[in-house]
């Protein structure tokens, strides 16, 4: 397995290089001039030149690219051009709130999704099944933006069940007070597609031969579903969770802006608006690495759920 991991890590290098090139091309070549954003409302050519020099954007592109690659290798992305905050510090401090929202979202979504999916797969073809699927489709067809606007207004303001927005330094307070509404919203929105998907996974398994074998053994339908089918359906479910796993490190910028959560999604959005290249680049590289590492971790974890997987 060691060799497998080494090989996979080795394969990340060209991908990462591609990410670097794409981001570099998109932002350095065609993006806005950060010097102008930083220069202020009254400025002159000399000062802009000075700023450009300080940021290093007056250098030839190949040199800037070289600096960028050096930054990646040394894990030192310097400081934000807009706020002069260390980029590493930005990422570290922003990822906490994002995870505080996204980990419960992923957990709840998966757990509730699996439970409901077993339920509807068990009663497949009945009215309950069809109505549940119908509700899912309708729920999926409404824009996240609408959910947020309406929920914040109704549950945050009109009914006052949750604070409208906010964030504190205390994890407990966040998770008890501020996070529930955004979490519930995100769970609600992501549950419908997951449920549909998981249901189809269960139905795929229900028609497998081994299920017939299990029944032929005299196992009750419950045991068949909860033991034999569930364990097999967990494999594609895990794949699906694996796909959405890197997303928890990005977070939802919509939730973060509307609920004033100092997370990474909002940070990226601001960085793009401000042409804050160090932050954009670092965030992208970090997220690309996270995505790849998570994918690798999921593949390795597969071994645990699916004994057929051979890592080579």
């Amino acid at each position: 397995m060691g060799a497998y991991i080494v090989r996979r890590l080795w394969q990340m290098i060209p991908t990462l290089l591609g990410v670097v090139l794409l981001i570099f091309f998109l932002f350095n070549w065609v993006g806005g001039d950060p010097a102008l954003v930083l220069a202020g409302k009254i400025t002159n050519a000399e000062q802009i030149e000075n700023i450009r020099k300080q940021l290093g954007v007056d250098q030839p592109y190949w040199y800037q690219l070289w600096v960028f690659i050096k930054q990646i290798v040394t894990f030192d992305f310097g400081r934000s051009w807009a706020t002069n905050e260390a980029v590493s510090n930005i990422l570290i401090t922003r990822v906490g709130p994002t995870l505080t929202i996204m980990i419960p979202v992923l957990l709840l979504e998966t757990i509730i999704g699996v439970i409901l999916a077993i339920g509807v797969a068990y009663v497949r073809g009945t009215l309950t099944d069809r109505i549940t699927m119908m509700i899912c489709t309708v729920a999926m067809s409404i824009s996240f933006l609408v959910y947020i606007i309406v929920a914040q207004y109704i549950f945050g303001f009109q009914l006052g069940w949750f604070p409208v927005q906010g964030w504190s330094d205390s994890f407990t307070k966040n998770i008890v007070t501020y996070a529930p509404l955004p979490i519930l919203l995100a769970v609600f929105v992501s549950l419908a597609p997951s449920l549909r998907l998981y249901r189809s996974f269960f139905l795929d398994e229900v028609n497998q031969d081994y299920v017939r074998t299990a029944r032929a053994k005299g196992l009750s339908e419950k045991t068949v579903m909860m033991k034999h089918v569930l364990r097999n359906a967990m494999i594609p479910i895990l794949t699906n969770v694996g796909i959405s796993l890197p997303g928890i490190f990005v977070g939802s910028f919509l939730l973060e802006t509307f609920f004033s959560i100092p997370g990474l999604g909002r940070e990226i959005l601001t960085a793009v608006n401000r042409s804050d290249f160090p932050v954009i680049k670092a965030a992208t590289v970090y997220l690309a690495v996270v995505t790849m590492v998570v994918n690798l971790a999921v593949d390795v974890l597969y071994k645990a759920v699916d004994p057929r997987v051979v890592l080579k």
Partner: protein
Amino acid sequence: MRWQVRKSPHDWVTLLFAIFALLALQPATLAHAAEKKTLKIAFRAAETGFDPQKIEDRYSVGICENIFDSLITYDWLARPVKLVPQIVEAVPTGEEGGTRFTFRIRPGIYFADDPIFKGKRRELVARDMEYAIKRFRDPANRSPYSWLFEDRVVGLDEFVAAAKKSGKYDYDVPVAGLKVIDKYTISFKLKEPDYTFIYFFAMPNVVPVAREAIEGYASDTMGHPVGTGPYVLKEWVRRSKIVLEKNPDYRGHVLNAQYADPADPWDQEAIKYLGRKTLPLIDRIEISPIEEEQPRFLAFMNREHEYIEETPFAFVPQLLPNGKLSPEMQKRNMRVFREEAPETTWDVFNLDDTVVGGYQSQNIGFRRALVLAHDREQEIAIVRRGQALAAQSPVPPGIIGFDPTFHAIEQEYNPARAKALLDMFGYIDKDGDGWRDLPSGAPLKLTYKYRANEESARQQAELWAKCLADVGIRMEAIAVQFADLLKDRKVGKYQMSGIAWTADYPDAQNFLQLLYGPNTNISNDARFKLPEYDRLYTQALKIPDSPERDQLYREMNRIIIVYAPWRLGVHRIFNHFINQWVLGYKKHPILFTSFKYLDIDAAAQKAGMQQ
């Protein structure tokens, strides 16, 4: 190669719970403000940091206003605004024909205690001011306000040039025009007379700083402001939370009632609650930036904040129907402070552009037609929800040089006149596609660039497109990211675009410089170059505030109307809603925050918040 351990999905859950537990271990700072008077408010946008010489945005500067002391400041209650000393003995008048300004700092002003001073009290001296001014020009600081001290102070530009040559910006090298006369006295000598120079010293970022603090915290001066002001930065979670607490070493200040308006209830209330008390009274201020309008507003309505400044226009009609508080707001004992902000919005034409630019009659006529075609009343009524005054000149009310009698018919919406003008200069539909074409016969299509993620900018663009379509002109609106918009405007890569300007200091010059020819590529985005205007501008600089100068300003305003490098927009009126337990509230037009002159009825606050 093969894992023999039997892993179940439960291990996953365990892992995630472990991560959770780690997150929970974050230190829970439970700052319990039992007896303290705490003020909680929201900012409309996120701050960048608190190094006074490095920042520009009003939210960061607003925080600096409370941490640092500018040499002079504005009287809190006086209207029109009036400069008063803050930590100097007197407000200097321009000597030597408006070229010399000398400040004498009061002895016994101390910086807030900070580890950087190693337990010793650190007195504020004239050198600190000299250091701060030099910081503005230090290339390493990339100060957005370096223009304040460019091409003005004798010897400073040469000093900067020499530093650039040698590669070392040496703060110890003296500058002739920046003279520290004694421990407490600093004197500025200008190249040219400039009576607006004095206003710079009331700006909350033109403040003395301690060199050892700046150098000691060199890696993060943004996060370690050390000043002489009433508050210190207690806690800062960037873009999420700013906590200020009373500076225990602060000398205290009092409310000056001398210039109060006896007829103004706000002034009277301020005197009632703040008069004769040693200020400040608020112990702790918690600020969170909320960029979205709905949550910022709902948070306030949910009593999460003490007051809301610059209430989003969309909500105002509901709260202030016909200019009066709604029954709901009355029931909450809410009050509203309406502020005619010292700012102007306008749409700028690129005078270098072949279509909208030019100084020929035809070009002027075309621009004037565009101005006449724009329905400004709708802009006020719908985009600004009635919370704005039509701008008659670039100069907003409350600013020295504002002329309340000045207004021109050329700024009044009149599509008939616009059409007539277009017809007159040959901007007619030549190819029969229903849209007007250029006199040359080439198709006419204007572009308007606006900031991508701003709803009001989009509405403005919508209005333009609609109004121009009404007179037969096709316009394309392009949403551009903020950085790109700045770039395009700065280098003249645009036709039309919308801008707003807030006064840095209360003088019309701050606005009129925006069309000064030599300021092209600096602040003159219109790239307007008219010798007559430039002549009037330079002349006005040399004269102190006087009827003579007002006359020059009026002439410049007339030129702006005639040549129409801008379509004048509005001066916005901001509505600040205040909960009843906030005492003595008043908003100063130039200063950014009100924390220094404010009190809270803690008992009422507690009761109110719990409702």
